[in-house]
């Protein structure tokens, strides 16, 4: 009984994921590229940065990067808090 429910749920979820991902756009041919073309053009023209990805990471979407740095800082804080030296000595 439990196994049947599990298989049915997996099939439904699989069908949903399969259909949804199949309907995005044909692989290798994104239809609308206006935003990315803007980035590719202006990365070199305004910022004279050869690497378009770095110019997106640190300029056009720079606020995401500070979030990302904050996530890394959060993980460091959490791990150092978990393994802090506290409590009684044995």
């Amino acid at each position, binding site marked *: 009984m439990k196994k049947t429910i599990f298989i049915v749920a997996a099939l439904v979820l699989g069908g949903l994921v399969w259909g*949804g991902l199949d309907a995005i756009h044909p692989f290798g041919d994104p239809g609308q590229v206006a935003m990315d073309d803007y980035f590719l053009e202006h990365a070199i023209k305004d910022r004279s940065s050869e690497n378009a990805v770095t110019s997106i990471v640190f300029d056009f979407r720079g606020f995401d990067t500070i979030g990302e740095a904050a996530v890394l800082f959060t993980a460091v804080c959490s791990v150092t808090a978990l393994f802090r030296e506290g409590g009684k000595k044995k």
Partner: protein
Amino acid sequence: MNWQEHLPALILAIPLLGAFATPLFSLGGKTLRNVWMVSISFLTLVLAFFIWKYVGANGVMVYVMGAEKATLALPSGMTYPVRIILEIDGMSAFMALAGSIVSFAGAVYSVQFMDRFTGMNRFTSLYFLLTAGMLGLMITGDLFNFFVFLEIASVASFGLIAFWRDKPEAIEASFKYMLISQLSAMMVLIAIGTLYGRYNVLNMAGVASMLHLGFAEKFVLAFLVVALATKCGTFPMHMWMPDAYAEAPAGVTCLLVAVSQASLYGLMRVCFSLYGATIGSTFIPWVIVIFGTASMFFGVSMAVVQHEVKRLMGYHSISQVGYMLLGLGVGLLALGNPQAMADYGFTAIKGGVYHIFNYTMYKALLFLTAGALYYATGTRDLDKLGGLARKMPYTTFMFAIAAAAISGLPPFNGFVSKLLIYESVFAVHPFFTVAALVTSILTLASFVKVFQTAFLGPEKACFATVKEVPTSMIMGMAILTLAIVLLTLFPTWVLSNLVEPAAKALVDQGGYIGAIMGGGL
């Protein structure tokens, strides 16, 4: 060009700066760190208040990160926004105000509550990061930025829930929350990627203006609703919630309440602003309504049998989230139909939105009083507590106010929002009103039980030396009590000035899009 234009960036940058600079300030000793913690939280609260004033006066606030002009959403020659845009409408400002009040109260409370533990400079950093993540979720207008702040808030919660690492239960609750939260975060990311692949835009308003319902969009909607409903703790996916709330330190639990409300806000933003009228069938609204009713009822029925104060309150939060989902789901049901919207839909949304504010205040206060109970007595088992009313008069008073508010006793603010939900939900089906009333009565019963066993009754010999908790803890609780009393005393003013702009902004999809795209739909 005035400084008020920069408020949306400042409210996120100040807590982040506070978190990054905490290790520097903790070199200067305990006092300096505590002053830093309280002052940064207070600054955040002041900024949130200014934002709320500004949005109330001038309408939707738009802030473009890194552009030549901070309020110009579209660069020349582009029809769609390319940069990260923070967009604050009435609803976001409302949520940010609620969240930063709770954050300030929790910071003040934690100063003396966490005094006897090591690792406090890490705790302070994590607390600010959690605040920043919560505020970022509430005010961002960019899909991928939403995901980033979701992750900041989640990772900070994992660290804070497991902060008392010598309790096995805390580690276990944190691990459980981490699994569920990572699964839902990855579902959110896949959904965002799909939307990006379809439209090549990451801005919420930009996507909303182009959206037409195909199979990929249905898949995205299903993933987003399931993931965000999991994060805010609705019934079938609720199992992380009581554990995490019970095991986290009390000052953190009260902020975790606000963080789960931020996820609920994300769910509403997706349903109302991103999809809005294009949501198509009534399937998703009915799913939300049924989830809401189920979590309302099952949450409270699991709560009445609990014997630990914080676990009991954790189960109650599931049932309270159900109220908001019910109200907002009914509003979503009436969204495409102006007649139904005027009849009951808008009232339901008002009730749901008002309940978010009320719930954040009184649930945070309840968790703080539970922490105070433990701090004074050393136990949180209801069977062992008793007769504390004379020893701890302030805590007793504030617990009574919060308990009366959560059970919806008439003069209190919980009653107003619940009444709005009852009367509007009745128009859809009377069953929902009956379920909501029964839930309310059970809530009252369980809090009467807590009040009677913990505070009333004969004084126990083992608690003869119990004293009232220290000043900063009382201050922290008093801030939230003051908020509840103010909401109670001026219900009409609150409804017309605080709640109605938020509810209107939530329904007004055209305004949300038009603030960025310039011309409405």
